[in-house]
């Protein structure tokens, strides 16, 4: 949900398929690994350090890559390719720095609780409640915050924002920072649970983007609903068949939705002129 929200914000505001979010995810995982395991900082400090580093990294992508392309008036396809370049560079820089092997943060057995015949580990519960909680808080901000309305407007007609006296470049930075925070929280939760390697970014990017397109790109709550439904479908596939087929379900669902409901399950149909 958090990853989908992060991806959705950038996609909805910039209208760019933000492939570099995969790099942000990997960067955040390793930033958490650096703070928590290598520097041995207390957990709260490691979390704050990771969030700060992730925001700086997101801002760096905006300053160094996206903004020059935006100012040059490049199309979304061109920016998407540049974003792919960022992903490739960052993934491999991290592999050079930390190695290609899997790194883990916690090597201990996680305590677990049983509920209604199901067993959950502590980190799984944390993932669920933090995910829902942060998504809901951001959702309330989206609903009532003035700046979030401006972000939504940016996705439709960015050139109108300066006309209305809104700081376009700062808003772009806000989008990237917000995306960075959301993806960093998701990355920390995943890294703590199953560890990381430098090449996990693309997998989570695909899951997050499929969730956004599955739910519908124009509604915040639809991203969360899409992510939830996708997770349930994946779990059902795992239960009924095998964990091997979960990716098939994910991308089968994507093709199905694109074919039969291109606006997403909870998306709004648009007139042709609006969709352009």
């Amino acid at each position, binding site marked *: 949900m958090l990853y989908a929200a992060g991806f959705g914000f950038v996609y909805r505001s910039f209208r760019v398929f933000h492939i570099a979010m995969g790099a942000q995810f990997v960067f955040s995982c390793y930033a958490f690994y650096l703070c928590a395991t290598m520097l041995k900082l207390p957990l709260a400090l490691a979390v704050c350090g990771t969030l700060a580093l992730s925001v700086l990294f997101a801002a760096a992508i905006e300053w160094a890559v996206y903004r020059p392309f935006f100012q040059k008036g490049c199309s979304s*396809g061109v920016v998407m390719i540049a974003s792919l*370049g*960022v992903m490739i560079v960052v993934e491999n820089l991290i592999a*050079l720095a930390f190695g290609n092997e899997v790194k883990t943060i916690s090597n201990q057995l996680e305590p677990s609780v049983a509920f209604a015949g199901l067993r959950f580990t502590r980190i799984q519960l944390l993932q669920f409640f933090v995910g829902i909680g942060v998504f809901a808080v951001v959702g309330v901000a989206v609903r009532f915050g003035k700046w979030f309305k401006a972000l939504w407007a940016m996705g439709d007609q960015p050139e109108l924002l300066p006309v209305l006296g809104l700081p376009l470049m700062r808003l772009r930075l806000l989008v990237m920072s917000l995306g960075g925070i959301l993806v960093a929280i998701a990355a920390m939760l995943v890294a703590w649970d199953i560890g990381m390697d430098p090449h996990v970014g693309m997998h989570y990017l695909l899951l997050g983007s499929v969730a956004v397109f599955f739910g519908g790109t124009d509604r915040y709550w639809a991203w969360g609903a899409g992510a939830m439904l996708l997770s349930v479908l994946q779990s059902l596939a795992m239960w009924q068949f095998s964990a091997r087929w979960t990716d*098939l379900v994910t*991308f089968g669902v994507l*093709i199905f939705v*694109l074919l039969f409901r291109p606006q997403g399950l909870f998306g709004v149909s648009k007139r042709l002129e609006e969709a352009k």
Partner: protein
Amino acid sequence: MNYLLHISVMLGIYGMLALSANLLIGFGGLLTMAQAAFYGLGAYAYALLSLKLGLPFFVTLPAAIALGALVGWLFGHAALRFRNEAFVLATIGFQMIVYVTLYNWTDLTRGPYGISGIPRPSFFGIGIESVPAYFLFTLVLFAVVLGFMHLVCRSPFALSLKALRDDEAAAQTLAICPKGQYIRAMVFSAAVAAVPGVCFASYITYIDPTSFTLTESIFIACILLVGGSGNLKGPMAGVAFMIILPELLRFVGLPDAVAANLREIIYGVLLIVLIYIKPKGLAGAYAIK
């Protein structure tokens, strides 16, 4: 000598792949990330038909091409309803579905264990076994594909694709049907991509799904983005650059693990810089939108 011939064979294989992707990316303006899926289907079709049914090369090659064309036609009907990011996402979805199927359908494909002992092609009882012979064989296949693409690029079909790429609505007013032309492009592209698949499987004599991943599709797209697309020079420049560069890096004396990551970093930086200062690539005729 065999090393240089091996590099030449790989240049030929990636040259055919780049030419196949060029039809969609360069002429059609549709950024596809599914080329490795068709490449893999060609490779698996050849391996399975040769090993399980014992069919000769002159049957398995057309069969692999036909399978690529059929799957391309079916997939084209679904994916070509979309443009831009949605099309990219649909091709990524298709690529992942093919990969997961190849990886997990172990009864047919042996999954991660791969298929070994794939026979080399033979004609009238004469097998193409040595690397020099295989180099000549790849050269012939590449020349045929290049000749075919040359004809396609000079045809009214390529002109109509360019028209659709530049302005789809305007092209429609000239009675050019986007769906029909794009599906034709997808079918040609998929069929041609199956040829290097056959070539790869019969050359290496072993295949597994890791040769046909999304990363491979991204690499094929990068060849066109770096070299350029929309003509025949761009893909050739891209293949020469992207295949020869890592070989040159070997002579710098870097450890293998570092060299692989460094090569990827160079690709990534080049991609960003080139798309910014030279959006048509090194020798292309079309700047991606």
